[in-house]
């Protein structure tokens, strides 16, 4: 009768694993994410919209501010190339929607990056130092959190004019609060882990620890929140533009187009439908991807 170690050797030689292989967190998350049909579909659609936005000038015979005098405020027409119709000034709606996509996506990404930069740093510092520093910093966040930011942004727009750069900063400044809270929570729990203590013990400066060790490890929830912030920002920018307080001519965004469309909704429904469709679709996709990411990184029995 053979003993155990001989048994194991034979099993291993035969190719049977001696023990079950562990799977890394990211690989697991990636598998779960790609199983989520809604999320995958959304990524594809967003990819298409992004490509359309990037290659906009190549996709239409018309420029976005070009007036077609013979075809003012008319519906979709495949023959003359106005596939989404034209607006009240005779400008092709298709290319304007795509240019609107450029603005909306750009604002979304840039403003979110601003909020990311501020929020992550703020949260990591607060969570890392803990104690009084954390307390004061978070009280400040609490105070800011209860403010009705939309009104302040509007106030900013009124006072300083409608500068697209200002829009980025204003929107980013509004969204960083929740990011800071999330990062601070994660940092607090990370702080007690051994590898942080080890880094500390070997004399790595606090600054370096925060940037090299803590921030890479809070990436999970940060990414989820980012994907959910982008649609918020796009929505806010559209809201401002709808009110007439957003981007200025000659730039256009979906909010502006929707605003123009809403005014003539009975006569020229296409002017509302197309930009609204693109906006809604984009927001949907980001939300689905965000939901999918959240489930992938932290699965519960949904």
């Amino acid at each position: 009768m053979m003993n155990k170690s001989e048994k194991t050797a034979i099993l291993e030689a035969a190719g049977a694993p001696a023990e079950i292989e562990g799977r890394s967190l990211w690989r697991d998350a990636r598998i779960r994410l790609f199983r989520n049909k809604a999320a995958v579909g959304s990524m594809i659609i967003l990819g298409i919209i992004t490509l359309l936005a990037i290659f906009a000038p190549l996709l239409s015979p018309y420029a976005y501010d070009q007036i077609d005098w013979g075809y003012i405020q008319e519906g979709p027409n495949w023959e003359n190339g106005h596939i989404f119709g034209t607006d009240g000034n005779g400008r092709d709606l298709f290319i304007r929607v795509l240019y609107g996509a450029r603005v909306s996506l750009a604002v979304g990404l840039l403003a979110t990056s601003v909020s990311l930069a501020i929020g992550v740093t703020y949260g990591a510092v607060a969570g890392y130092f803990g104690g009084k520093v954390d307390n004061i910093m978070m009280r400040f966040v609490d105070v800011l959190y209860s403010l009705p930011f939309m009104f302040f942004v509007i106030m900013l727009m009124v006072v300083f004019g409608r500068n697209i750069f200002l829009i980025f900063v204003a929107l980013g400044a509004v969204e960083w609060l929740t990011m800071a809270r999330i990062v601070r929570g994660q940092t607090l729990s990370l702080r007690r882990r051994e590898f942080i203590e080890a880094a500390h013990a070997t004399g790595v400066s606090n600054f370096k620890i925060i940037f090299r060790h803590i921030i890479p490890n809070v990436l999970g929830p940060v990414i989820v929140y980012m994907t959910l912030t982008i649609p918020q920002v796009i929505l806010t920018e559209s809201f401002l533009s709808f009110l007439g307080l957003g981007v200025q001519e000659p730039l256009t965004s979906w909010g502006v187009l929707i605003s123009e469309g809403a005014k003539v909704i009975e006569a020229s429904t296409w002017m509302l439908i197309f930009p609204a469709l693109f906006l809604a679709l984009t927001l949907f996709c980001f939300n689905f991807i965000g939901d999918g990411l959240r489930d992938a990184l932290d699965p519960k029995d949904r």
Partner: protein
Amino acid sequence: MLSYAIRRLLIAIPTLFIVITVAFFMMRIAPGGPFDQERALPPEIEKNIKAAYDLDKPLIEQYAIYIGKLFQGDFGPSIKIRDFSVAELIMAGAPASMQLGLSAIAIALIFGVGFGTYAALRQNSAVDFAVMGVAMIGIAIPNFVMAPLLSLVFGLYLSILPTAGWGDGEIQYKILPIIALALPQIAYIARLTRGSMVEVLHSNYIRTARAKGLRETLVVNRHAIKGALLPVVSYLGPATAAVMTGSVVIESIFGVPGIGTYFIKAALNRDYPLVMGVVIVYAVMIIMLNFLVDMVYGLLDPKLKSR
């Protein structure tokens, strides 16, 4: 409970002061505003503004006077709408806005919690996905898109409701604006309730309730609901803020004579005192409401109640 209340108050009060101070300084930096040396305003308005803002006094004194006036409800004169003070304009618009806002929140709560619970009890079924899918639409489609669409469908195509206007405040003019305001919140609250209810239904204490042989209705209505609704109560603060923000757009689209409409006009006309006044009023309301919601939450959560 008392210490909790005091802590929330300690946050509410500085917030209030930040809002007022920011508004104060914004006014003074604004180009083309009442404090701009290059201003070109009609002489009567100039006189009013000088009187209202005591421009010859030192800044600190101006600030003190400003705060004093605020507490008395004096926001100064509107610089674009002659003969009316900001306070008067806000009071004129308040009733309509209040009606719309409160109704919208009430509807959002009733339908949101209802749908959310319905979906949670049938988790992962077709009904669940359908309800959550529709809710997703409500969240993703902005209210300034939804409002014109509602107006189009119910006002024009089906002709059962007026497309816009306020008439004498009869109810048919209120229905569409209230629905438009409520829809995104119904969606959000439904998703929140469903998620929270699902989580509660998987908790250990619900397992205990079932092990005790209680009927399912008791398990849900007595044991699950309380825990599941706490996040919804928390959300009431941001929900009200969202409704207020939304009202700005909805009132414009439907021609409702509320504070929101004045706000938009003021923003586009650069009527700074009016803009400032509305922002302060809204901010104060939101801060007070958040405080109230915090209190309610404290009363509902036993762990906070006994502290």
